[in-house]
């Protein structure tokens, strides 16, 4: 079905869950007023990104009042949002939840925690272990958190699991100033466009803005049609509220024109990956 989504390109405060919840509730209210059906927030929208030893302090259990509050708000509008999740066995995950009609309909825990260059996630956070598609009012979705998307297998698994819409929640740092456009932005733009093109999926990419300790997050939240075409792109560096009209017909037509996912041979893929895993194990 056709639906309207908002990419909430916000600037979270580092380590301030209560303040961020105020920002987030404001964005949700605004999206509801505009008649949007879904609002997508960035990775770690509730906490900020370079948390380091703050991870346990900002972590929220799934049954925490903050998450319950957001679940309540999802009676009016579906919500995808990132936060630090604390589990019963005291592991801390970089997680995203999809909230619909007052309940959590999906929880994704970031699988690929970058620990290179300026990143240090795996020192502080536990690794997720699954990519699962899930059903929503607007079709079958898959969620990825930032670095997850740089692993081709992650998007591929979600698409093979039937997702036709991929949501990517991101906190991507700005770097690379020698080209016509920002280095990290142009890399991401190529990545989301190519992924959409390969998998005939829509992509909703929500990236934050602001600075943490001199590191800029560049924004540029984007909706990519299943053809790989960029339909709407948010402002570079500035807060933005990106409204996206999503056309079901465009997905259907693209899948008729380019039926690569229909023709994708899961058996061959599994056979070859199985062989590789077997050979590596020897």
């Amino acid at each position, binding site marked *: 079905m056709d639906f309207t989504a908002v990419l909430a390109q916000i600037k979270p405060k580092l380590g301030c869950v209560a303040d961020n919840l105020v920002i987030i509730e404001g964005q949700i209210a605004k999206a509801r007023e505009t008649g949007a059906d879904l609002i997508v927030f960035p990775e770690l929208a509730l906490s900020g990104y370079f948390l380091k030893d703050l991870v346990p302090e900002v972590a929220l259990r799934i049954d925490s009042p903050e998450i319950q509050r957001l679940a309540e708000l999802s009676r009016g509008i579906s919500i995808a949002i990132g936060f630090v999740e604390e589990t019963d066995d005291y592991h801390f995950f970089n997680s995203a939840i999809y909230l619909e009609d007052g309940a959590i309909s999906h929880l994704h825990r970031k699988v690929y925690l970058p620990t290179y260059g300026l990143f240090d996630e795996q020192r502080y956070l536990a690794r997720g272990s699954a990519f699962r598609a899930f059903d929503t009012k607007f079709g079958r979705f898959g969620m990825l958190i930032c670095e997850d998307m740089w692993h081709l297998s992650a998007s591929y698994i979600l698409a093979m699991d039937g997702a036709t819409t991929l949501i990517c929640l991101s906190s991507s740092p700005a770097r690379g100033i020698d080209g016509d456009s920002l280095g990290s932005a142009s890399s991401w733009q190529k990545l989301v466009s190519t992924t959409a093109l390969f998998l005939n999926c829509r992509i909703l990419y929500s990236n934050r803005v602001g600075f943490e300790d001199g590191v800029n997050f560049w924004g540029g939240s984007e909706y990519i049609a299943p053809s790989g075409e960029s339909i709407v792109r948010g402002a570079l*560096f500035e807060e933005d509220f990106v409204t996206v009209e999503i056309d079901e017909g465009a997905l259907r037509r693209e899948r008729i024109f380019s039926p690569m996912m229909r023709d994708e041979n899961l058996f061959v893929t599994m056979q070859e990956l199985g062989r590789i895993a077997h050979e590596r194990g020897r």
Partner: protein
Amino acid sequence: MAGLRANMELLRRLLVGFVRDEVRKVGISKVVLGLSGGIDSALVAFIAAEALGPENVHAICMPYSCSNPESEAHARLVATACGINFSVIQITPMVDAYFEMFPDADNMRRGNKMARERMTILFDHSALLRALVLGTSNKTELLLGYGTLYGDMASALNPIGDIYKSQVWQLSRAMGIPAEVIEKQPSADLWAGQTDEEELGFSYRQVDELLYRMVDQRLTKQELAAEGFEDEFIDSIYLKIQGSHFKRRLPVIAKVSNRTIDRDFRYARDWGK
């Protein structure tokens, strides 16, 4: 080379945004900086004026008796060009009072003392004006250690610490800094006739080409040699970076507890901001 030829519009937006965001998020609206008459502090003044409005930028020129009078004239020119607040505070009485006790002190000790004297004035004005101190050290001098620890290297925020001198020149042109400031020989102006390039023994353009490949691109020594850099030049720059690394780190703390500051007690400086 592409890496040193930066996209000026992007760089300007990033650095202006950095000053605006990092200053205001701590609940402050003003900055203070030392304006020497040279290009680095001129560029920081222009960035700050664009970020916060010139009325919120306070520049202090702090000459010593043997500083080149042209430096103060250029500092004044820059302040006028970007419309910021400007004052002059002589450091001669404080510096001379100290060296009356050590009349044999060499140029290095005197230069360091002057740099630290200026630092104390800037941080005093930070309290006086409720303004953050902006740093003006570029990436070239930070990597080479060509600065005074706790002197000109001290600041709250440094907008230009990740751009090379060659990029400082480019951005200064793009932002309309007066030509005489851009075109003159870089100098620490610690004694008459001093120039950076003479003291360092190479030009900034030469060393930036090497530093960019060595630090940013992580080329090996063999790859650098294949690109035409002399072995001795590569080795001497590597040693300069290594030998000055202490200047780029906090003081080393003897670890005895389970949570030692900056080793296993780790928080961003923007914690709660």
